[in-house]
């Protein structure tokens, strides 16, 4: 008899029912507390609902008809409460308490051997009557479901919500909370812990409305979840709370608002300045796409507030960390990666051992998790190094005030994109170059007030600085509405300094002429004034920026102004490189040292004092063939056409002769290991796509070797 399913279920009914009833009563106490304190606890009402819901099914299954009926009606009442159709008043809570007591009595009776719940017929009948009354009153006065507001939900999301979840979503919209989608990927083995951690972080911030699982990744060891969260606080607060969990936070899109994670405002057409019309350069220059002029965004006037009040709260939540400590952490992560590789070695041995196959699988899995966490850790440390450019901009605005007073000019300083983030070290190194650039704008760009007035310009000159992130780079534009660069003066100055001869000057494009300003000693000022005497040449600015793998470009329009565009990597861990081929080998050349590339025929090469040279706009450019420098054996003959990549180290120029330009790529430089580090001409290695490892050339030592500059003779 006891083998019948119904009997087996009955044996288990009592303990579970008692547990549910206890939970139910405990929840009621909490709900009452919250009600008195004026707090709303939708999650808890839902829990109470779910407990009687289960009790109903259980009671029905074991034939306890009265308990089933009573819990059904309690469930109905709580359903209306959780959907906000009935208010959870003292009267309603009293009814629920009574029901809880009655459930307890029935369970006790059963425990003492009663075979049915008939003993509490009277009590439950009385309670049911009052329940029906409460439910009837509720039905008359329920309110409409709130609308979606401006949120845009896709149908597939709504279709998967339960009625309650949908209601909670609407309630969050009604309350004007922000709605977010938190995307998280969990390993099957650790999902419980991971999700618990995520819930813990989210709990104080708002309400998790639903969990949407997906198997998009296709990785059977992973589960991806989208949590829909409603929270009253700002997005940044949630972002901060979730830091380090490796989850992606996205605001739920709203109609008529921009979507996606903080995008820079769309660039407005440049005011005044047009990209200088260019003659085609004398030879192909595929190496310079990074220098394409980019439209500047002159944003609505944002006057600088000198003293920014930072809140006490944010100060107390910040710790100052010596950047060397972060470097140390980064190194530790590197060492951990090595240790992980060691584990992999052990694992490979284990795999061979058939008896330990199970162990090997487990270890394999753990090693994979470890590897992924290490990657996350590395990313997190890089993130910690990031600081907003606003730190430098604030300093600059004080400098602008000072310089403009000294120069007797009225300057409006416009800042945008101060929130753009950059590696802390880069930000530190940037402040001097930026200051020089801005000083130049004020000293040489902006005209004296009386000149401006005559020209019909506003008396106050504008200097604007705008930063924005583009992929792995940050672009900073410094623009003035001053007099513009004087082409004639630039060319004259360059000729005087011996960079150009008169004939070659005529061949230059406008852009090339403007770029003369980055040559040492070249200036638009014929006589050094007091101010320019103190200023630093743009060549120094450019050199300093090159050290940061930064690239600077200039555009100008006579009478309308000048714009300097600065492109920097977000972090020095990633650099831009030109991928080239020479004698059948592939190399990467850091783009920061590449000035331009030329196409040459074998006849263009001359020999002067046993050195090969080519002519570059009237200048003699020493060249070095990569295959000669590295003594590479070439299969077949040299191609008739070659490329010359003009590289520079400070004022020195050398042409690297190569066979082919492959393209431009962001790379991570890796060391060749202690034994091979420091080989002249080799800066390290990097991995291009498809497991291809290539060497990164060290331009500085190649230039030194070719020219014999620096200490002593060039080693050959």
């Amino acid at each position: 008899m006891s083998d019948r399913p119904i009997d087996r279920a009955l044996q288990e009914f009592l303990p579970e029912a008692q547990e549910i009833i206890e939970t139910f009563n405990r929840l009621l106490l909490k709900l009452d507390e919250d009600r008195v304190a004026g707090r709303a606890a939708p999650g808890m009402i839902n829990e109470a609902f779910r407990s009687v819901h289960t009790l109903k099914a259980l009671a029905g299954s074991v034939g306890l008809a009265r308990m089933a009926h009573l819990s059904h009606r309690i469930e109905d009442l709580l359903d209306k409460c959780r959907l906000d159709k009935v208010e959870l008043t003292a009267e309603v809570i009293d009814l629920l308490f009574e029901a809880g007591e009655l459930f307890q009595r029935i369970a006790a009776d059963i425990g003492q051997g009663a075979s049915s719940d008939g003993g509490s017929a009277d009590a439950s009948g009385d309670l049911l009557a009052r329940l029906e009354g409460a439910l009837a009153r509720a039905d008359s006065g329920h309110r409409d479901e709130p609308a979606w507001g401006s949120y845009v939900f896709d149908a597939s999301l709504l279709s998967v919500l339960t009625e309650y979840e949908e209601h909670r979503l609407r309630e969050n919209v009604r309350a004007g909370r922000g709605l977010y989608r938190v995307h998280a990927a969990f390993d099957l083995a650790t999902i419980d812990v991971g999700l618990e951690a995520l819930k813990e972080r989210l709990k104080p911030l708002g309400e998790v409305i639903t969990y949407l699982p997906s198997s998009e990744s296709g990785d059977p060891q992973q589960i991806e979840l989208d949590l829909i969260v409603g929270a009253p606080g700002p997005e940044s607060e949630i972002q901060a709370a979730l830091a380090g969990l490796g989850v992606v936070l996205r605001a739920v899109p709203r109609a008529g608002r921009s979507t996606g994670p903080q995008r820079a405002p769309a660039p407005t057409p440049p005011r005044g300045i047009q990209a200088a019309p260019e003659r085609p350069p004398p030879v192909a220059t595929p190496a310079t796409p990074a220098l394409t002029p980019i439209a500047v965004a002159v944003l609505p006037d944002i006057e600088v507030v000198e003293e920014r009040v930072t809140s006490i709260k944010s100060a107390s939540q910040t710790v100052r960390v010596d950047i060397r400590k972060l470097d140390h952490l980064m190194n530790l992560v590197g060492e951990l990666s090595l240790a992980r590789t060691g584990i992999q070695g052990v694992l490979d041995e284990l795999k061979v051992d058939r008896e330990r196959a199970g162990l090997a699988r487990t270890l394999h899995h753990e090693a994979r998790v470890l590897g992924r966490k290490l990657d996350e850790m590395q990313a997190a440390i890089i993130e910690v190094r990031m600081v907003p450019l606003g730190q430098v901009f604030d300093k600059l605005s004080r400098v602008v005030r000072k310089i403009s007073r000294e120069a007797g000019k009225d300057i409006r300083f416009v800042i945008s994109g101060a929130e753009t983030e950059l590696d802390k070290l880069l930000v530190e190194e940037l402040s001097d170059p930026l200051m020089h650039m801005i000083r130049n704008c004020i000293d040489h760009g902006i005209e004296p007030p009386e000149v401006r007035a005559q020209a019909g310009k506003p008396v106050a000159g504008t200097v604007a600085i705008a930063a924005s992130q583009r992929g792995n780079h940050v672009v900073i534009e410094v623009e003035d509405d001053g007099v513009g660069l004087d082409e004639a003066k630039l060319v004259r100055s360059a000729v005087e300094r011996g960079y150009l001869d008169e004939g070659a000057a005529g061949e230059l494009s406008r852009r090339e002429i403007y770029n003369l300003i980055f040559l040492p000693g070249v200036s638009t000022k014929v006589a050094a004034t007091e101010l320019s005497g103190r200023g630093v040449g743009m060549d120094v600015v450019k050199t300093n920026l090159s050290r940061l793998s930064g690239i600077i470009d200039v555009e100008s329009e006579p009478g309308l102004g000048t714009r300097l565009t600065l492109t920097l990597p977000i972090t020095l861990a990633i650099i831009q490189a030109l991928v080239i081929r020479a004698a059948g080998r592939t190399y990467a050349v850091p783009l920061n040292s590449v000035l331009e590339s030329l196409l040459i025929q074998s006849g263009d090469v001359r020999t002067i004092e046993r050195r090969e040279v080519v002519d570059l706009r009237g200048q003699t450019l020493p060249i070095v063939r990569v295959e000669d420098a590295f003594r590479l054996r070439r299969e077949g003959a040299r191609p008739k056409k070659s490329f010359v990549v003009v590289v520079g180290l400070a004022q020195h120029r050398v042409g690297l002769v190569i066979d082919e330009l492959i393209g431009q790529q962001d790379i991570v430089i890796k060391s060749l290991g202690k034994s091979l580090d420091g080989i002249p001409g080799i800066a390290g290695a990097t991995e291009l796509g498809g497991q291809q490892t290539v060497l990164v050339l060290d331009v500085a030592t190649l230039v030194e070797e070719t020219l014999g500059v620096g200490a002593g003779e060039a080693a050959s």
Partner: protein
Amino acid sequence: MSTRGTPFGLVATEEAWHRRTRAEPVPQREYLIFSVGGEDYGIDILRIREIIKVRPATEVPRVPSFIIGVVSVRGIVLPVIDLRLRLHHEPAPVGAAARYLIVARDDERFGLLVDRVRQVVRVGENEIEAPPPVLAGTETDFVAGIGRSEQRLVLLLDLDHILRFEVPRARPRSAP
């Protein structure tokens, strides 16, 4: 006394088990045996991190000829040494059985190109003989001792010596 059954019906006693594993007072070491240029060599297994198939190395200029180049193994770039050339054997094409042994010195990794990986043997420390002063060629520099495995002589290599080599270095650069 408990016994354990084996799939073949043999019964080994716990005692016999312990006797076999315990009664060896001489410290033993395990060596990975591999061949290079027709000779068998051994390296202490503890120095070997992994054994991988040969993959194309990226040529590095200005290094001794026995350095084939660098390869990237799990994101770490490491030099690969051709043991044939390092041990003064004749160069030969790389065969299908050739492997890279990934070995470690401190926290640095190296790859060693070998013709074939044979087996792992245990050698008691008392079975290792000092290398004779004159061996064929000059490779004696790299041999730390001679062991015996299944009647064959095995040259146990001095790994640290093999991994010690010089490359040209750029002068320390002065700041621009």
